[in-house]
């Protein structure tokens, strides 16, 4: 089955070009050209990935991102013309999983999309636990003391990566490679922002984390099981 990509971009030429490239790579594509129509399209089409331009008419890309994230865990990749810290961090904090800076090479974009679509179908029946949090890997379910917690696929992947090797400290670079699929060193802010998001969902007190611990100067590790 083909994966479906929803392109949200106001520039028709770029949207068309994206469609051509993505279809060439074997994806199904759908295009919406403004912000307010993005959310209905997500509901209706149930895409596997959303490509979202940050600069949109009608509705700010960041608001669109927040709206989608509020009701769906669908992976969101931002397209941004700005590499300024503030914009990128704002986008990530509003729920985007990854971002690509314009102008990008088609291969780069496709790699980012594929990384978000990676599904480990043949996962063994695995039950992990970190502190009070238990993770049912094949079922993609996380719960704390029996209460289910809703995580996006990316947050889930991040938590699983940490929980699988409880004693190991992961550097940000290693997490970027394992969770985001970056081969080369990339923006470590991705990791920081998503760790914050993950903590806000799984920790009892995000200020004093027990599940995802920071190892100063090195990276992160999972708390004791």
């Amino acid at each position: 089955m083909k994966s479906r990509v929803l392109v949200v971009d106001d520039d028709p030429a770029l949207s068309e070009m994206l469609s051509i490239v993505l279809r060439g790579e074997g994806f199904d594509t759908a295009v919406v050209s403004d912000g307010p129509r993005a959310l209905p399209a997500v509901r209706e089409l149930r895409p596997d990935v959303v490509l979202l331009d940050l600069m949109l008419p009608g509705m700010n890309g960041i608001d669109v991102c927040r709206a989608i994230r509020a009701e769906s865990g669908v992976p969101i990749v931002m397209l941004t013309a700005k590499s300024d810290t503030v914009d990128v961090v704002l986008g990530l904090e509003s729920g985007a999983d990854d971002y690509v800076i314009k102008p990008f090479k088609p291969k780069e974009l496709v790699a980012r999309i594929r990384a978000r679509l990676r599904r480990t179908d043949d996962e063994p029946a695995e039950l992990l636990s970190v502190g009070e949090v238990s993770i049912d890997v094949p079922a993609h379910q996380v719960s704390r003391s029996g209460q289910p917690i809703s995580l996006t696929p990316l947050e889930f992947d991040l938590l699983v990566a940490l929980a699988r090797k409880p004693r190991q400290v992961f550097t940000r670079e290693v997490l970027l490679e394992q969770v985001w699929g970056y081969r080369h060193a990339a923006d470590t802010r991705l990791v920081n922002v998503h760790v914050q998001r993950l903590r806000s969902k799984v920790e009892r007190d995000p200020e004093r984390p027990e599940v995802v611990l920071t190892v100063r100067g090195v990276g992160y590790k999972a708390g004791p099981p």
Partner: protein
Amino acid sequence: MFRGLGHLIAELQAIFGAAWRRSLQLRVAVSTLALCSGVMIVLGLLLQTEIAERLVQGKVDAARIQMETATAELERDLSGVNPDDEYVAGTLNKALDRLSVTTLTDQPSTQNAGDFRAVLATEDARGGNQAWAGRLDTIPLDLRRAVQSGALAVEFKTVDGVPMVIYGQPVRTAGRDLQFYLLFSLSAEQRTLGLVQSTLIVGGLVLILLLAAVTSLVTRQVVRPVQQAAEVAERFADGHLEERMPVKGDDEVARLAESYNEMAGSIQSQIRQLEEFGALQRRFTSDVSHELRTPLTTVRMAADVLFASRDQLPAALRRSSELLVEELDRFEALLADLLEISRLDAGMAELGAERTDMQSVVQRAVEAVRGLAEESGTRLELDVRAGVYAEIDPRRVERIVRNLVANALDHGEGKPVQIRLGADEDSVAVLVRDHGLGLRPGEAGLVFNRFWRADSSRARRSGGTGLGLSISLEDARLHGGWLQAWGEPGRGAAFRLTLPRKVGGELDGSPLTLVPTDEPMDAVLVHSTESTAVAAGAAEDGAASSEVGQDGLATDGAGGADHVTSAGIGEQR
């Protein structure tokens, strides 16, 4: 001990000198005081002399009248006395007693010369005195002689510690003349004079003190607004552009304040305007860069689609697609650099400083251009050791080193390029040296200019944007560091990046020498120390953009001049 005292005096002098130079109020007050004191001393002296003269003159006149009265009386009394008589002394005494009583009571008070003592003496043929009444010993001899000659004589003399005016006159008798003297005490006059003197001195001092206070107050009135104006101007100069002087009344100070405020207003509006222009310009650059990105992305993807299937295209189209993709790479690099420099210009750039191993940064930068080096067949010689840590923004420093090495590869003509890392307590430095064409006189100051090219006909292997070194310079500045260039035709060029080890640290030198000392021995022996000194000097004042080293290194007759340019943080302040 004396030395210490001298030191103290010198110090006090220095302090006073400084206060004298700094305070208009002090100068005016002191000058006024000095002048007034002089005038008052002169006036006081004149006044005192005049008063003294008047007092003495009055006394003398009164004494004279009394003298004449007394003489007339004595002549009446003693007309029948024989001076040679044996008992004449008794007679004389009696006459004097009478005199004291009568003169004291008869005279009107205005003509009264006051208390007196009288002396009567006989005189013999030889001029000596045989008999006398009163204290003849108090009468000076020259006065006696004058009286002997028959005239009225006067003299001043201090008797028993009391100043006296002494009158002498002969008194005619039946026989020889008698000598008659009257001594008037001047002690009352002296007391009066003393009183006058002390009154003058005390009055003068009080007057001077009052004058000092008044001058101080008056100058304060003038100086105070000037001080206020200075304070306002200082704050204005510090960037508080809305500072204005208060305008009070209609006097000169108010006029000064008004014109100052007008000036400040016009400066402020001009600065605002310039700032707005600058902001607009930067906004524009940034917007253009952003707006270009979306169509560029489309073009880029289209080109990549064509490029991916270039094998199916005829030769001309295939080459076209290749060129399209290559040039798009350049275009993108240029756009990225433009955006970066507009961000740096706008002061929007952030220094993401963290403690970093310099070796890894240099290594990464070198790896990034490794392909370029292999293409041009250039050997990269690294002299880099591990364990040199500095608080830097690794992304920016890596970019600087990458730009420097790429630049060296561009102009190194395939000869080896050396990359050295140096460090001392406060700073770290990276030196990139090539042995290519070098820089002509004056060019070391231009290499950091945007879009500047050493030789427009020279090919650029790395396809650099022409902004690399400018961005590197801005990045170095952002760290509070220096980026400096040296070059000489035929000897190649060297670029040195010096950064403080701690964020906010001050640089006062670089651990590496910019001007190379690896030249042939004869050249080295003559210039090495000098070259070093000049490079360090150029670094120290942080100034540059001109050929700082030209004069110092021009001794190399045949080789031409060296050119050192440092572009430090202080350059554009």
